[in-house]
C-alpha cells in the first residue's frame, strides 16, 4: 500500500511537469547534437554545472540573500499594510468607495517608472528597492483581501454575533480565517511580481543581488553565468510557489467538497 502511493505520487509529479521535462530534454539534446549557438545558448549540462559551482561560492550566496532579503521584507510590509486596509475596505462600503477610485488610479503606474522617484526619495540601495518591492506587492494583495472579505458568508458573522463575539473577535475568529484562501492567492501574485521587479531594480545602482548578477554577466559576456542567474531565480520562484501551494492545500483541505 505505501509503495503504491509513493509510486503514484511520482507518476503524477512526472505527468504534471511533462512539458518541463520535454523542454529540458530538448535543451539537452540540442547541446548534445551541438546545434546550439555556442555564444548565446550554453548546453544544459554546462548551465547545471556552472550553477552548481556558483552555489559553492559565498559571493553568489551574497547575491541570493541580498535579493531574497529585499523581497521578504518588502513582502511582509505589504502584508502588514494590505491586510488591515483590505479588511476595512472590504467590510465598509463607504470607505471602499472613497478609496477605490484612488487606488485604481495609482494601480497601473509601472513600478519601474516610479523607481527613479524612489531612488530620489530613499537613495540608492536597500530602501529604494524595498520601496519598489512593497509597491508592487501590496495592491494585488489588497484586492484579493477585499474580495475575500466581501465573500465572507454572512451566516458566519451572524452566528458569531449571536454567540456574543466582540468586534475584535469577529475579526480574529471569523474574518481572518475566512480570507486565508484569498490572501494566499494574493500573496502568490505579490511574490511573483516582487521577484520580477527586484531583478529589474537591481540593474541600477547596485553591486549585489541576483538582478545585478545577471546584468553584470550580460555586460561581461559571461553568458553561462547569466543562465545560471536565471535558473536560480526560477528555482526561487518555484520554491516560493510550492510553499504557497502547500499552505493552500492545508487550508484548502476544509474547502474540499466531499460527499
Amino acid at each position, binding site marked *: 500500500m505505501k509503495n503504491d502511493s509513493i509510486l503514484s505520487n511520482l507518476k503524477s509529479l512526472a505527468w504534471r511537469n511533462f512539458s518541463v521535462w520535454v523542454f529540458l530534454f530538448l535543451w539537452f539534446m540540442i547541446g548534445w547534437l551541438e546545434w546550439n549557438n555556442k555564444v548565446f545558448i550554453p548546453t544544459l549540462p554546462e548551465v547545471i554545472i556552472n550553477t552548481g559551482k556558483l552555489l559553492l561560492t559565498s559571493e553568489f550566496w551574497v547575491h541570493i540573500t541580498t535579493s531574497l532579503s529585499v523581497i521578504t521584507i518588502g513582502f511582509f510590509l505589504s502584508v502588514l499594510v494590505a491586510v488591515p486596509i483590505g479588511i476595512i475596505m472590504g467590510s465598509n462600503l463607504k470607505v471602499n468607495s472613497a478609496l477605490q477610485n484612488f487606488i485604481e488610479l495609482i494601480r497601473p503606474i509601472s513600478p519601474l517608472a516610479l523607481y527613479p522617484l524612489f531612488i530620489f526619495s530613499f537613495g540608492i540601495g536597500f530602501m529604494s528597492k524595498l520601496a519598489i518591492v512593497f509597491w508592487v506587492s501590496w495592491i494585488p494583495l489588497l484586492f484579493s483581501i477585499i474580495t475575500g472579505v466581501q465573500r465572507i458568508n454572512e451566516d458566519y458573522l451572524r452566528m458569531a454575533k449571536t454567540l456574543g463575539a466582540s468586534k475584535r473577535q469577529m475579526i480574529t475568529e471569523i474574518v481572518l480565517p475566512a480570507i486565508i484562501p484569498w490572501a494566499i492567492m494574493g500573496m502568490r501574485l505579490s511574490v511573483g511580481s516582487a521577484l520580477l521587479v527586484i531583478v529589474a531594480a537591481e540593474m541600477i545602482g547596485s553591486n549585489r543581488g541576483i538582478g545585478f548578477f545577471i546584468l553584470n554577466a550580460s555586460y561581461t559576456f559571461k553568458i553561462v553565468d547569466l543562465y545560471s542567474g536565471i535558473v536560480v531565480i526560477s528555482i526561487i520562484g518555484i520554491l516560493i510557489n510550492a510553499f504557497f501551494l502547500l499552505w493552500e492545500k492545508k487550508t484548502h483541505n*476544509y474547502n474540499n467538497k466531499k460527499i
Partner: protein
Amino acid sequence: MIKIKNLSKTFVDANQSVMVFDNFNLEIAQNELVIIFGPSGCGKSTLINLMTGTESYGSGSIEGLHGIKKIGYVSQRNSLLPWLKVIDNIAFGLKLQGMNKESRHKEALKLLGEMDLIGYSNFYPNQLSGGLSQLISFARSVAFKAEFMLMDEPFSSLDFFVRNKLQDIILKIHKKRGLTTVFVTHQVDEALYLGDRVIALSASKPTRILLELDTKGVKDKKSEFFYKLQRELLSCYQ
C-alpha cells in the same frame, strides 16, 4: 418563561399590506420543547425572526427574551465554520467567552459523547453529511449554554432514516440538559414525536393558532394514540 402578548405585525410591500399577526398570543414555559407546526408560508419563520429580533413587530410585546443574551439558532443553513474541526466548532462559543482550550475541548467531547458522535470530533464540516451538520450546530448552542434554542426546520431536507436518528439525539440532549426550545417544522410525525406541545398555525392570514396539542411523553410512533393525534392535527387544515 417567554410570553408573546398581543403581537401584531403587518408586512408591507409595494402594492399591498398583509397583516401577518393580529394580536397573537403564545406562552412558552421554561425547558419546554414547543413545536410550531404549519404549512409553508403560515408565518412560522416570521415568528422565529421576531423572536430573534431579525424582524420587528408593530405592536404588542415579547417578554422574557430581554434578559436572555444567549440564544441558540439552528436552521437548514448551518453556519459551521469550515476551517474548524467539529470539536472546535462546538467549542466556538466557549472560546469567544474566553474559556481555555483544555476546558472547552472537554465540554465539547462530553457533549459529543452524549450524542454518540465522538467519532466525528476531528472531522471538518465539509466531511459531514447534512444531518450531522445540523446536529453539530445544535451541539454548539448547547455547549454554549444557550438559554433559549430556536430551530427553524433544521431537518427538512433530510431523509426519513437520518431524521429519525437526529430527532432521538435532540430528545436525548433535551432530556438530559433541558433547554427552552422552539422547534419549527411542517412534518407531522416530527412534530408529534419531538414536542412537549404542538402549536398548529393557520395557513390563512392573519396567522392564528388553530390547535394546541399536549404531546408530552408521546414517543411510540406506531401506537393508536399517535395515529389519533396525527389525524387530529391534520384535520385542522381540512
